[in-house]
């Protein structure tokens, strides 16, 4: 019951603020929303410390409404409510004086409630409620400033692209149901322990579920919605489109690890898609000019890393990166938000620069975030990324190819992270603004997130240093045997990745301070700015043909309708003709009567 309460608290906030928020004074809705999320966080942590919890009640026939708090969902719960709380507090300052202030916090609380449903679910249909719920909250918040048609379009794009993935989720559930007759995750876990019933069909189910994850986590080929999702207010980007919702796909894979660890081919596919997405996101980040879109593409890239880890079988490593990424990516977004706030709404990095002198706190937030993203040794991003790199070699579904690819992407990551930092904070001032530092209510969450970005990595240090996270998560994940590297090899690799990161950071730091760029780079940047024309290709290949088909169907429908009108008119005419038989003359009636009798007797079988 207490477990259900963690979901009900923010849901209550949604109802309360949705109904009465308009009548409250400005900071009150934000304070209520933040307080409820904090309460949910404390309740969740308390339950986790007392050894987890379980909740089950009748729902659909054969499908109970079941929630489970184990270490895996507990970690996600802490990220969702913990980071969520900090971003709520930040939003109190960021959204100040917005006409939709209370509506914003109502949606925000709805999102937290739905995300908790997703995370705590112990059966796929319940998870699907949360899955769709966060999609809805995301849609509402991307289109928060719905008067802007472009923003509203972005919201719809996010929803529609996600629906493609959701279809996969639904079909995957259907196959699991057909195979095992249950959708409870705990029961499926037990059912899958023996030899597999129908491996090829099960692999299809795994692929379809992964398609759901691809949509939600913006992986290739469904990554096109996430950059556009930056239309929402910055706290939304930080909470939903960086720290929590987009990692739901990774969580789904980890939750279903018992399934994927039995399906090597599907796992291999996941790893390949993850690596490709990581490379695509990193390459696309170079050409972006919107401060938030750079970070958005970096999110796509980092999510690709997580899928790479999950694909090779290192589920706990994937979640480790989810954790560190939640801190430094939320920090980067909120720092971006502070910059946008400081410049009065300016988002174009070409009109920024030189903010190092003006923003005494935010500059440090930005620097820590960028360095953690770039993988500077000893920051959290370094440890988790290194864990992924090592995992590609030690886990059974990995390989050297993955390692090399991931290492190259790490170089790119370091470079574009520095590009972001250099363009925003260093160099000369290119805009005409009077920057002012953010208020304390926006600074303090960033202080805490910066602390997390530095320290979160120490939860899982490489062998032989202490690793707290792996044994913590182990019981909730599938057993995948990793072979251990020798101590020398392991630390040699760590040294290599540190060297590579430092090299990338230095290269980025110096390269992007140049006044003029070589021609090959400009050509690359132009392609990168358009995200390598993926949107245009989709429009040409899928969207426009579908629109044309819809248009044709509409025309056909009009034609049909005209036909039906004609048909209806003629039937009516026929009826009026028949009614004219009713002359009112008795002799006619009697004649027709007798004729009728004769016809009737004529058709009898004599």
């Amino acid at each position, binding site marked *: 019951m207490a477990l259900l309460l963690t979901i009900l608290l923010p849901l209550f906030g949604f109802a309360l603020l949705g109904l009465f928020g308009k009548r409250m004074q400005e900071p009150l809705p934000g304070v209520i929303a933040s307080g409820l999320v904090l309460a949910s966080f404390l309740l969740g942590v308390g339950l986790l410390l007392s050894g987890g919890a379980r909740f089950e009640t009748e729902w659909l026939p054969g499908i109970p409404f079941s929630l489970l708090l184990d270490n895996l969902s507990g970690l996600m719960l802490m990220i969702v409510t913990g980071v969520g709380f900090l971003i709520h507090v930040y939003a109190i300052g960021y959204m100040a004086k917005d006409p939709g202030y209370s509506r914003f916090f109502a949606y925000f609380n709805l999102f937290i409630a739905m995300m908790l449903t997703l995370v705590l679910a112990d059966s796929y249909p319940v998870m699907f409620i949360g899955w769709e719920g966060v999609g809805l909250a995301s849609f509402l918040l991307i289109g928060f400033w719905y008067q802007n048609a472009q923003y509203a379009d972005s919201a719809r794009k996010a929803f529609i692209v996600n629906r493609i993935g959701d279809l996969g989720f639904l079909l995957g559930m259907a196959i699991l149901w057909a195979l095992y007759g249950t959708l409870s995750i705990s029961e499926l876990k037990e059912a899958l322990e023996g030899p597999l019933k129908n491996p090829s069909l099960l692999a299809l189910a795994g692929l379809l579920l992964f398609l759901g994850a691809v949509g939600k986590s913006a992986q290739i080929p469904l990554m096109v919605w996430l950059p556009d999702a930056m239309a929402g207010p910055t706290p939304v980007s930080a909470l939903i489109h960086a720290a929590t919702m987009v990692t739901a796909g990774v969580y789904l894979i980890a939750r279903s690890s018992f399934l994927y660890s039995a399906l090597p081919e599907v796992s291999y596919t996941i790893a390949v898609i993850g690596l490709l997405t990581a490379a695509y996101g990193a390459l696309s980040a170079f050409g972006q000019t919107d401060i938030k879109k750079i970070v958005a593409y970096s999110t796509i890239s980092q999510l690709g890393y997580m899928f790479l880890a999950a694909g090779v079988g290192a589920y706990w490593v994937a979640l480790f990166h989810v954790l560190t990424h939640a801190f430094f990516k939320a920090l980067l977004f909120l720092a971006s938000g502070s910059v946008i706030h400081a410049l009065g709404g300016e988002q174009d990095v070409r009109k920024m620069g030189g903010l190092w002198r003006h923003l005494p706190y935010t500059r440090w937030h930005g620097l820590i975030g960028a360095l953690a993203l770039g993988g500077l040794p000893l920051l959290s991003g370094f440890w988790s990324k290194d864990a992924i790199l090592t995992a590609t070699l030690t886990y059974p579904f990995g390989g050297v190819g993955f390692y090399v690819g991931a290492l190259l992407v790490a170089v790119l990551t370091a470079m574009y992270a520095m590009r972001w930092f250099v363009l925003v904070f260093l160099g000369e001032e290119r805009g005409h603004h009077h920057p002012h530092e953010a208020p304390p209510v926006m600074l303090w969450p960033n202080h805490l997130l910066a602390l997390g970005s530095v320290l979160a990595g120490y939860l899982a240090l490489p062998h032989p240093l202490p690793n707290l996270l792996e044994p913590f998560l182990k019981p909730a994940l599938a057993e995948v045997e990793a072979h251990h590297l020798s101590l020398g090899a392991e630390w040699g690799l760590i040294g290599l990745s540190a060297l590579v990161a430092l090299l990338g950071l230095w290269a980025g730091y110096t390269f992007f301070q140049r006044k003029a760029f070589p021609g090959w780079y400009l050509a690359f940047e132009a392609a990168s700015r358009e995200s390598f024309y993926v949107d245009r290709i989709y429009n040409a290949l899928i969207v426009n043909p579908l629109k044309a088909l819809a248009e044709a169907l509409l025309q056909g429908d009009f034609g049909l309708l005209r036909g039906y009108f004609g048909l*209806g008119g003629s039937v009516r005419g026929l*009826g009026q003709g028949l009614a004219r038989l*009713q002359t009112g003359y008795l002799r006619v*009636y*009697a004649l027709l009567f007798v004729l*009728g009798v004769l*016809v*009737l007797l004529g058709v*009898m*079988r004599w």
Partner: protein
Amino acid sequence: MTLAILAVFSVALTLLGFVLPPQGVKRATLLGLALALLSLLLTWGKPFAFGPYTVDGVSQVFTLLALLGALWTVGLVRSRRFEFYLLVLYAALGMHLLASTRHLLLMLVALEALSLPLYALATWRRGQGLEAALKYFLLGALAAAFFLYGTALFYGATGSFLVGTPGQGPLYALALGLLLVGLGFKVALAPFHFWTPDVYQGSPTPVVLFMATSVKAAAFAALLRVASPGVPDALSLLIVLSVLLGNLAALGQKEAKRLLAYSSIAHAGYMALALYTGNAQALGFYLLTYVLATGLAFAVLSEVSPDRVPLESLRGLFRKDPLLGLALFLASLSLLGLPPLAGFWGKYLVFLEAAKAGQWGLLVLALLTSAVSAYYYLGLGLAVFQKGEAEALPRPWARNVALLVALLLLLLGLFPGSLLPALAAGS
């Protein structure tokens, strides 16, 4: 028992009518009908026979429906002359008798016993009613003649007056065909329907309610018996003509009672589908939903105007009196057979019977014409929501009954299974 109650009340009230005030006769008639209904329910499912008078399941179900219609009619009418109530009572007696016998001669007597009062009732408003009633009477006499001829031939072919006696040969076929004509006239199957639109339009609305509900129920009971060993081939012709003519001719109607007259022809066609398997349960349920829905429609119309009701005069009824407007709306939707109203299940059950009998052609035709009927039923049902100046002076009693029946239509639509076992027990 039921027969005795109806007979005693008929005889006694004929004498007492001269001393009692009309209102007293009305109350006594209601009492008699209610007692008859009660005795019917008390002996539900228990067969009883006395000579050619046999009370079985079919008799009970269809008598129940006929008595409901009679009660409703008497309740709606406030007549200054006591004969009105008596005529309804006589007709009810005839209906019970018609539903409760297999003997053709008794059937003929019963048929006349229910027809003659109806001819008189149809003239109740004089004027135009007189012309319609005369047509009704003359055509009715023609139909009765055919029925009598059929009876004679039946005896000739089988040596028995009891329907259901197996037989063969041209004489037998001819006999069945002529019996079908006689009863088809009463239930208004095309092409023996010509009286229906004129009489429905010309008669007082409560009388039309009586004709549309009770007469149909009683005559279908007899049809069920006549058609039970083997359906005459000509029945399919009657069904085709009825559903086509009824539905198509209704499309262009501008007057509510005339429209419902055509609708009743079409419904007779649908009901006849159940004769193929002789399933009294399906037919009984259909008739029940039809009695409730069409009765409700006529009851609402009689509150709007005792005379003609052009469709325009229904506009704005919902604003004027939401209960009556909604009741008419629900009634027409149920007649159309739209779920979740009772009419849907009636149609479903009857169509199922046609499918069981393998009458696929008829079934498809019935479905198609049923779709066509949506046009005029929606026109009737939605008229009440349009802007207009409808007049209505409903009496509280009529309003309460309308509310009750509308709720019944909804409840039966939502829980059709609650009543089917009772009907099955009866038949």
